[in-house]
């Protein structure tokens, strides 16, 4: 069964031949999917191309998917901004600290909840799940952070996000699938709960941990709201918030400046925006291919379980 589930594509064509019409249909399908796939990539290609193109090429609309008048000036400009490096440092820091903290606290929470014999399991799960249904909302959250003195601190950027109930439930579902007998044998050898969790349960759930870790890391890296809400000092903004400011200000610039005025600026604002986007995406692009096989597996097990 397992082998067949891995390759659903093999199923009917292996047993039965396809008629010419069906083959044509298959070709059309692949063709359409290729176009859709290209649509997913082309906006990115266009942006990359713009980031490497000259101001003149961009304003005259010559840049499509390849750089025209290749130049590195925009990247020099972007990486010459101390703000960019400050924001990058903040983002890297909160992603690393946040993901590590989140994984620790989420595993600690999910493991007990995966035990059906736990006293008061139902009410405790409800206690956690209720926060998914109902929340204080933006204003009380802001006031809480202010009361805790967390405004304009690094803490506010990663600590409050360290427990996502959704991720905890996914993890709990994974842990439930681990045979109790294996854990019991460890407990008979005198291992405590933490020992069992670290030396038995976690090593057996690596795909799940990779999935959830990826979710947290991407969540931290991509989050611009927290920085927007709780950080007012420009040098403490995470990269995405910095990008948000550039992007939304650029809209207003486009609105107010005429094309002639833009042409007088040596560097194109669009190109600067594009280069910042590209740089902000590089880390995700680097990690993504390695984690893909894990999160697909992880998503399937976690979501199919009811």
């Amino acid at each position, binding site marked *: 069964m397992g082998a067949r589930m891995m390759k659903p594509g093999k199923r009917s064509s292996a047993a039965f031949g396809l008629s010419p019409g*069906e083959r044509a249909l298959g070709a059309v*399908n692949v063709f359409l999917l290729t176009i859709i796939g290209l649509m997913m990539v082309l906006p990115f290609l266009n942006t990359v191309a713009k980031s490497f193109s000259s101001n003149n090429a961009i304003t005259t609309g010559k840049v499509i998917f390849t750089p025209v008048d290749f130049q590195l000036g925009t990247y020099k400009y972007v990486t010459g901004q101390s703000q960019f490096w400050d924001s990058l440092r903040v983002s890297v820091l909160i992603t690393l600290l946040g993901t590590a903290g989140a994984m620790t606290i989420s595993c600690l*929470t999910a493991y007990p909840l995966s035990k059906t014999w736990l*006293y008061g399991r139902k009410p405790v799960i409800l206690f956690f799940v209720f926060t998914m249904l109902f929340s204080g*909302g*933006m*204003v*009380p959250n802001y006031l809480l952070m202010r009361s805790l003195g967390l405004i304009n601190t690094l803490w506010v950027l990663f600590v409050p996000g360290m427990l996502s109930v959704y991720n905890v439930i996914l993890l709990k579902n994974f842990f439930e699938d681990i045979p109790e007998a294996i854990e019991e044998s460890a407990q008979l050898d005198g291992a405590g*709960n933490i020992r069992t969790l670290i030396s038995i349960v976690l090593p057996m759930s690596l795909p799940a941990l990779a999935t959830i870790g990826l979710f947290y890391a991407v969540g931290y890296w991509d989050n611009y709201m927290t920085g927007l809400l709780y950080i007012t000092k420009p040098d403490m903004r995470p990269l995405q918030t910095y990008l948000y400011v550039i992007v939304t200000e650029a809209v207003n610039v486009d609105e107010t400046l005429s094309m002639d005025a833009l042409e007088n600026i040596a560097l194109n604002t669009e190109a600067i925006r594009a280069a910042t986007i590209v740089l902000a995406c590089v880390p995700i692009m680097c990690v993504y291919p390695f984690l893909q096989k894990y999160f*697909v597996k992880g998503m399937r097990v976690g979501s199919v379980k009811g």
Partner: protein
Amino acid sequence: MTQRQLQGRAELSRKTLDSIRESGRRSQRARLRRSYSMYALLLPGILFVLLFSYTPMYGLVIGFKKYNIFAGANPFDAISHSPWVGLDNWTALWRQSKFRQAVTNTFVISALKVMFCFPVGIILAVMINEVRNNVMRRGLQTVMYLPHFLSWVVVGALFMNIMGTTGLVNQAIIALGGEPQKFFMDNRWFRFLLLLTSSWKESGWNTIVYLAAMAGIDPQLYEAARIDRANRLQLIWHVTLPGIASTIVMMLILRLGGIMDAGFSQILVMYNPTVYKSGDIIGTFVYREGLGKLNWSQGTMVGFFNSLINMVLILGGNMLSRRLTQRSIW
């Protein structure tokens, strides 16, 4: 059977029963002991949620007060020092056409997203499932999952780039002899833009669940249908789609829980004052009018309204899901 034998039996069964009870009690005690030590692991999580999720819920009373942030030692202490005003904040809100507009937009945009973005994932999954070449298939999946991992700021910026006034799309429109469009500043286009970008970002990701459900369909069903001379389209219609029907229903119903968030972080990046009419939603309204203008009480009230409807929708959706598909999130 003699009297003695019977007594002996009764004695024996009482003994077994006692020992079972005793071991039960022992295992019960063991269970309790193990539960205690498990709660030590749970403690950080419980405290965490108490502080960061339940404390703000107490803050909701601000919505029913005339809140003065400087009334106490800190903003949270100030809550108890502020006077009650009942539903004044609500009536003041409802009188603003901007707020009513935001509520309407929230529902309209969400409904549009369910109608147009939700099916895209299913259609894509069916199409990917029909690809026989595994290399092609994996390549497509890699490309289509990727946008999910980009932030809304990046996605918004990418689309401003290609659909802005001088972007690629407008160049194409001009080349084809059409009028260039200001997609980001036109109330006729803005909602379309929201649907387009959210399909672009999430459709590929949404296929994962459906593809998993399709992988679980019994291959014998396909073979049987094939013997009955079903063609490829008929296989999709009569085997694949019924096979994932319960998953579709579940995803659709769970989608209800997301109705109240019509895409806050998406819209906050893409909108501007010219498209408030078609694009301002509850989330952006609270951000602007509540936090931006320090209208604490009204902002809280909107959040409360939002949360309340959200809870009803999620619970209702979950109940429906349990009844229709015997599956639910918890």
